[in-house]
């Protein structure tokens, strides 16, 4: 653990020295490795800064970051170039693409480098690695990771007489608090008690925290999933909650756009909502009121299990030069240094994969200013490792997620929760079956 750390540190600190030395000795050309990413906005700025740091930290490798659109778009392109020389060295892919990437045959599991070099993987956050570890192999290097948390409006809590320091934890509590928090003005609801983004991820999390699975065969981790099980009782509880609150008029629907629900929260249209840990700091900073951060709620009929990691990881491709792979690997390692991670965490709000980063001064400063940020890390670290919280693997995950969203929207329109879920599961099963047929 220590040596790697040191070497990384050494590289950065002796930067100038090393450079002059090596250019004198080895007038070799730098190895260039292309890095496809899907980060836009602030994320892109940060990623480019880190890449610059890496490129300046040594003079053997140059990483070229290239934006390739959304995860889906990047993946679409990768499907065409994967397995060829045109493939990038590293590609960033969202968590639900994990199974696809593993099966694609275009990638080199990072485990091979870890084994080769004896890289100390333990320094990284276990709960994050769990997701990307399949059959005891770490396939990709976790990169931008996030989990859901519940954000709430402390001012509104005070106003409604709910204890702002003791936010609701269970579904029942949520329901109750939401009743108090909802403000109506005749027909118009001025403030809703609770909201969830119409995004499948949150449903998955709410199922997992109850210990429920998404697909069979141990969430697809024992062997390829053949059936969706998100319509089990855990899933039904979540949908029931949404349905009941919606009918009671305490649930605010703000669609599937991240910014919309955040704006709703910040303008006081909703008092509690689920957000990604990556969005916490910006919301806390921008909101004109005191923002509280809490763990995501769970059903009182189950135990709290914790959260699944979300976000994306970096994959190394296998159709490129060894040298390039090496470059990619070096970059991945560089990324996991506490300095890089600290910067990444602060810039973007994503987790630091290397918990050592949290000890960095800059992080501590920030946390002092926004104690809320720590809650997200606590929630992750308190998570009980299990197949449920490890997350599901399925080659048709994007589709399944879409089905869940549709089901959720249908529930909001008054469909029976069970019926909606069953239909989504049925559709998902069909797709799974087809995919299995095609990929035999």
């Amino acid at each position, binding site marked *: 653990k220590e040596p790697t750390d040191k070497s990384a540190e050494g590289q950065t600190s002796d930067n100038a020295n090393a450079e002059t030395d090596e250019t004198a000795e080895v007038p070799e050309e730098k190895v260039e490795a292309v890095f496809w990413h899907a980060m836009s906005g602030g994320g892109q700025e940060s990623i480019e800064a880190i890449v610059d740091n890496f490129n300046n930290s040594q003079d053997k490798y140059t990483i070229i970051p290239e934006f390739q659109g959304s995860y*889906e*778009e990047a993946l*679409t392109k990768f*499907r*065409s170039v*994967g*397995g060829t020389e045109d493939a990038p060295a590293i590609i960033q892919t969202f968590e639900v693409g994990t199974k*696809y990437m593993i*099966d*694609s*045959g275009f990638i080199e599991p990072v485990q091979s480098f870890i084994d080769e070099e004896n890289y100390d993987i333990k320094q990284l956050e276990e709960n994050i690695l769990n997701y990307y570890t399949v059959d005891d192999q770490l396939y990709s290097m976790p990169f931008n990771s996030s989990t859901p948390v519940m954000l709430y409006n402390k001012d509104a809590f005070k106003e409604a007489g709910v204890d702002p320091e003791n936010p609701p934890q269970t579904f029942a509590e949520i329901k109750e608090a939401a009743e108090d928090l909802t403000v109506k003005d005749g*027909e*118009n609801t001025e403030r809703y008690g609770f909201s969830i983004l*119409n995004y499948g991820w949150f449903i998955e999390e709410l199922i997992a925290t109850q210990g429920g699975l998404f697909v069979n065969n141990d969430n697809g981790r024992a062997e390829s999933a053949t059936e969706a099980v998100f319509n089990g009782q855990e899933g039904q509880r979540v949908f029931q909650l949404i349905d009941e609150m919606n009918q009671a008029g305490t649930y605010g*629907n*703000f*669609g*599937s*756009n991240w910014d*919309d629900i955040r*704006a*709703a929260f910040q*303008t006081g*249209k909703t008092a509690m909502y689920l957000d990604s840990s990556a969005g916490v700091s910006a919301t806390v900073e921008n909101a004109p009121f005191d923002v509280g951060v809490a763990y995501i709620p769970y059903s009182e009929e189950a135990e709290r299990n914790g959260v699944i990691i979300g976000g994306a990881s970096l994959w190394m491709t296998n159709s490129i030069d060894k040298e390039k792979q090496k470059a990619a690997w070096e970059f991945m390692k560089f990324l996991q240094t506490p300095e890089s991670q600290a910067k990444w965490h602060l810039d973007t709000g994503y987790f630091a994969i290397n918990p050592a980063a949290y000890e960095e001064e800059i992080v501590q400063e920030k946390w002092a200013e926004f104690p809320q940020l720590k809650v997200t890390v606590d929630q992750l670290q308190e998570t009980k490792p299990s197949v449920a919280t490890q997350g599901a693997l399925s*080659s*048709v995950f*994007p*589709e399944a997620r*879409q089905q869940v*969203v*549709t089901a959720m*929207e*249908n529930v*909001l*329109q008054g469909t029976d929760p069970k019926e909606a879920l069953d239909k989504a599961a049925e*559709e998902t099963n069909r*797709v799974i079956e*087809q995919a299995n*047929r*095609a*990929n*035999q």
Partner: protein
Amino acid sequence: MKQSAEIQVATVPQAVTKKRLVYWRSAIWYLLPSIILFSLFLFYPLAKTFYLSFFLTDRQGLANVFVGLENYQYILQAESFHKSIIATLLFVFYTVPTGVLISLFLALLTNEKLKGIGFFRTIFASTMGISVAASAVVWLFIFHPSMGILNQLITAVGGQSVEWLLNPDWALVSVSVTTIWMNIGFSFLILLGGLQNIDNHLYESARIAGAGYFYQLRRITIPMLSPTLFFVVTVSLINAFQTFGQVDILTQGGPSESTNLIVYSIYREAFVNYQFGTASAQSIFLFLCILIVTILQFTFGERKVHYQ
């Protein structure tokens, strides 16, 4: 004179075929660039799509399992695809007539010789210069449930705010409004061009006859504009069937698949779910739909069109 009759019989067919050959030869040069490019970038992919629609594809997107008509059977019985078809038809129905009528109205307004009319023309044509991505983003803001100007206005006058993009009953309407707005610029410009090409003498003559504005509109403007109108309607129809960008940004096909237009559905099948087989089948289905509509357009619509 008998002689000449004989000559005629002998030479005419030969001359005619020669003439045809000449026409073909010259036509081919004009058409060649288009034909090459079309074949390469449209017909070939279409054929490939057609081929893929009979297969299931593996992870690399290669045709793997031949399933015959299964993909077609599936999409035809799948509820969500039925929804797509209905949504698409509704969308076409909402956008095309309204869009054309509004554009026509604006074109008629700006066809008058008034001071500063060029300014107004530029304004009306301006939406043409705004990309789908940009305008969808702006409209996303306008429809925003809490900060959006629309709801602000409605609540300001005491109405109940509307879930523009979140209520399945409204979402398609909202997407249609956006689409109409985006298309106005182009239709307007084309219609204005058509209006300006109508010979002024016709109006002069009608004015002398005492025809009022609406009478002139009905008896002269519309018939004389019919080729342009026909063109605009055809193009709007085809565009409406192929709408994608605004759906992607505004609603992603939701809520409850109410805005899941066929093209968006294809996009999702192909690029998110990697089901090229069904995506291809849907593409072919869409192609046939547009084809039929266009054929109907040409056979029934063009009859009413007057060409100079």
